[in-house]
Every structure is written in structure tokens, then in C-alpha cells.
């Protein structure tokens, strides 16, 4: 293999034209999840997100006038208007209507609400989510399973090929998230024993199910073994997810892992925002051949 052919292969992998179905599914699931997540905050708009309530704008003190006024909490009517824009943006993103405008609206209004939200709490999944949104913004994820294709081509399932780059970026990011997290845990003192698990299950993150489990009074050696298993699992997960012969099994294991995290530690964000990205690890042509629950006209390009 020459250097030239190696580069051609590299370039082809990153930028070849691919069916957009996996990206479209990520768009739909992420848009729907953001819509529901945002909607759950509706009862608290005045108190937690408006100038009439209790907010601490995080960046307003760090930005010079007059731009800082954009980062201050709006009066209640303005908060409602922005909130409606966020919900509309998420809904339009999910159905694939004016996708770029809708994702841009979600990013801008979402960041605004996040930074005035009482006691900003930037978690790993926030960073992952903003990355996914930026990638989708430039992805052509509305080139199938979208209102755009329905209006332009007469069918929800009509599709046009897109550049592979956005899907490859999401795919690499999924692997890096597990790889980096697993490797970091290997070096962290708190992850040397099972204490982190036992105490976390008893903490405010723990669910009633987790507390019941701890009441079984299993020896600390059990928690040590579970923590070691988690470290090993997170280390091999990215490789297992990518390698075709093991992919199916690691999909099941990854989903099971995040379901357990939800059931025991009430953390839903990775199940909702990270697991759907697994689909980007599948060959795009394979996802295209799935039978979607929509009227299936002949594929058109």
C-alpha cells in the first residue's frame, strides 16, 4: 500500500457519500429527548428561569456591557417566548423541518437557559450533547425521515446521500467518551475500591432499588469486584462496539449498563443522549435497509 492509496482510503472513510438514515435517527431521538427534557421544566419557568425568580446568570458578570445584557435573565414574558422557541426548535429538529434553523435555535436558547439556571451544573453529557447538536447542524440529517423530504420529494422515506464526516465524528466521539472515561478511572484513587459504588448507591443519586440492594449487606469484596468489572468493561467497550463480530453483544451490554445506571443511580442522560449514537457505529448501508414504520415507496436518490 502506498502513502497515496493510504491517504485515499483515509479520505474515503471520512468523506464518502453515505445514506443519511443513521444520522436521521440520531436527529429524531435527540430532538424528541430535548423536547421532553425542556418541557419538564415548564412548571418552573418563572421561578427558576426569569428575572422575577431566583437565578444566577453564570456568564453575565464575565462579559462586558452591552453584551452581558443578553446573558441576563429575561422578564417572564421574554422567558416564555424563548422557552416556546426552544420547544419549537426541538420539535422541528425531530420532524426534520428547517433543520439548521431549528438546531441553531435549540443551541442558542438551550445555552441561554443553561447559563441562567440556578447553580449551573456542567455535566459530561452537556458537553456531549452540544457536540452532537453542532455536528447535526452541519450534517444533512434531514435528508430522510423528515418533513423536508416529505414536502420536497413526496415521501418521508425518500433519501439523498450525505457526506460521511458527521457520522464518523459522532462514531469516534462515542468511542472516545468510553475510552477516556475508562482510562481516567484506572488512575483515580476513588476508583481503586468498591467504596465509590457502595456509597453512591446510598447517596441522593441512589434509587429505592439501590438502597434495597445495599441492604442485602453484601461484603465490600463484592463491590470491589463490580468496580473492577466496570473498569474493564468501559475499557473494552469502545473496541467491542466497533468490531463487527462483537458489535451486537456490546450494543446489548452497553444498553444494559446504562439501564442499570438509570435504575440504580437515577442517571438517565447517557441512556437518552449517548446510547442512540451507537447507531452511528453501524454501516450506513445496513441502517438504510431497515424497515421503517412509515409508508415505504421505492428509494429514490
Amino acid at each position: 500500500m502506498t502513502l497515496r492509496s493510504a491517504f485515499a482510503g483515509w479520505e474515503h472513510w471520512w468523506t464518502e457519500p453515505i445514506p443519511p438514515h443513521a444520522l436521521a435517527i440520531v436527529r429524531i431521538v435527540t430532538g424528541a429527548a430535548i423536547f421532553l427534557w425542556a418541557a419538564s421544566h415548564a412548571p418552573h419557568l418563572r421561578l427558576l428561569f426569569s428575572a422575577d425568580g431566583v437565578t444566577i446568570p453564570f456568564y453575565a458578570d464575565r462579559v462586558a456591557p452591552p453584551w452581558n445584557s443578553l446573558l441576563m435573565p429575561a422578564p417572564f414574558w421574554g422567558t416564555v417566548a424563548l422557552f416556546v422557541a426552544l420547544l419549537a426548535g426541538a420539535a422541528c429538529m425531530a420532524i426534520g423541518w428547517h433543520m439548521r434553523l431549528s438546531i441553531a435555535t435549540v443551541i442558542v436558547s438551550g445555552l441561554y437557559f443553561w447559563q441562567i439556571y440556578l447553580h449551573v451544573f456542567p455535566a459530561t453529557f452537556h458537553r456531549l450533547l452540544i457536540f452532537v447538536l453542532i455536528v447535526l447542524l452541519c450534517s444533512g440529517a434531514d435528508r430522510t425521515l423528515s418533513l423536508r423530504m416529505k414536502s420536497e420529494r413526496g415521501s418521508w422515506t425518500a433519501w439523498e446521500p450525505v457526506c460521511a464526516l458527521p457520522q464518523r465524528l459522532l462514531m469516534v466521539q462515542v468511542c472516545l467518551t468510553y475510552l477516556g472515561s475508562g482510562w481516567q478511572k484506572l488512575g483515580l484513587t476513588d476508583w481503586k475500591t468498591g467504596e465509590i459504588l457502595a456509597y453512591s448507591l446510598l447517596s441522593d443519586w441512589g434509587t429505592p432499588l439501590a438502597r434495597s440492594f445495599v441492604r442485602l449487606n453484601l461484603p465490600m469484596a463484592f463491590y470491589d469486584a463490580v468496580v473492577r468489572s466496570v473498569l474493564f468493561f468501559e475499557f473494552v467497550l469502545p473496541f467491542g462496539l466497533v468490531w463487527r463480530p462483537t458489535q451486537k453483544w456490546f450494543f446489548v451490554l452497553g444498553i444494559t449498563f446504562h439501564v442499570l445506571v438509570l435504575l440504580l443511580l437515577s442517571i438517565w442522560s447517557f441512556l437518552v443522549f449517548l446510547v442512540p449514537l451507537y447507531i452511528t457505529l453501524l454501516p450506513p448501508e445496513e441502517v438504510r435497509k431497515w424497515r421503517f414504520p412509515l409508508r415505504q415507496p421505492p428509494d429514490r436518490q
Partner: protein
Amino acid sequence: MLRRILLQTVIAGYLLVSLAGISFSVLRIRIPFVPDPLFRWSYESMSPWQRFAKNNQDIAIRAKKPDGTWGDISVEKYFPFRRGQRMVMVQLASFRGDEAKLVQYRRLAGLMLREEQRIHPYTALELFAVTWPLSPESRDWLKPFSTSTPLATAP
């Protein structure tokens, strides 16, 4: 040609930033020339669950009535979400340093007093950090043994 250059630049940039994130995660080696916000984004998007406590940690709010007596106010109204999220939020995790946190707690106490005064004629409000040991029995099983630390008072 321009498109090819642009795409390869995006790929190279993304891989460099990711390499910076993962090399710091694994080896604590910081790759130069990667802008700090991008490096931090990459590194922190791979951050695992890093903290656990052997105590419950919560916040308590007390308000002073016109007759001079103090009464407890529900915290749920201000933190209406999962308790784990509330536990992190009440520590104002985004604000670094004790002094910065105290400034924000004072701000918070003032805003909470304003909010409470919409309905009640309270004249003052205090915020406390409350900690008590974890217990398999229930969250509040050992709360009678809690310790409180004053955080801020308004006005």
C-alpha cells in the same frame, strides 16, 4: 479542492483536540497549541463520575417571621429535580473557591427572600449547609445527627 481542504482541516482539528483530551485523561500530558476551551471541552466530555461522599449533603432554608420567630422553608420549590442533581447544585459546583461560593450564596439568599416575600411577610432568610451520615435504612434515618453550617443571611 477547497472543500477537500476544509474537510481535512476539520478532521485534523477534531483529532488533535481529541488527542489532547485523551492524552491528558490517560497520561496527564497537555498537548500544546490546542486552545484551552477546546481542550477542556474534549477532556471534560470524557470525565467519569469522580466524586462520592460518605455523608448526605443538602441545603436548608430558614425565614424570620414578623414576630421574630424562625421557621423552616421547603427546599423542594427551589430544587424541584432529582435529589442527586440537587446535591451537586446546592454546592454551586461551577463557582470555584470558597469566597466566590459565599458571594453567590448571599445573592441566592437575597433572591429567595424576595421570592418568599411575594406571599409571606418574612423579614430575613438564612441558608445552611446540612450534612448527615448515609444509611441503608433511609435517606433521613440519621438526619437527627446532622450538622449545620451557616452559608448566608439576607438582608
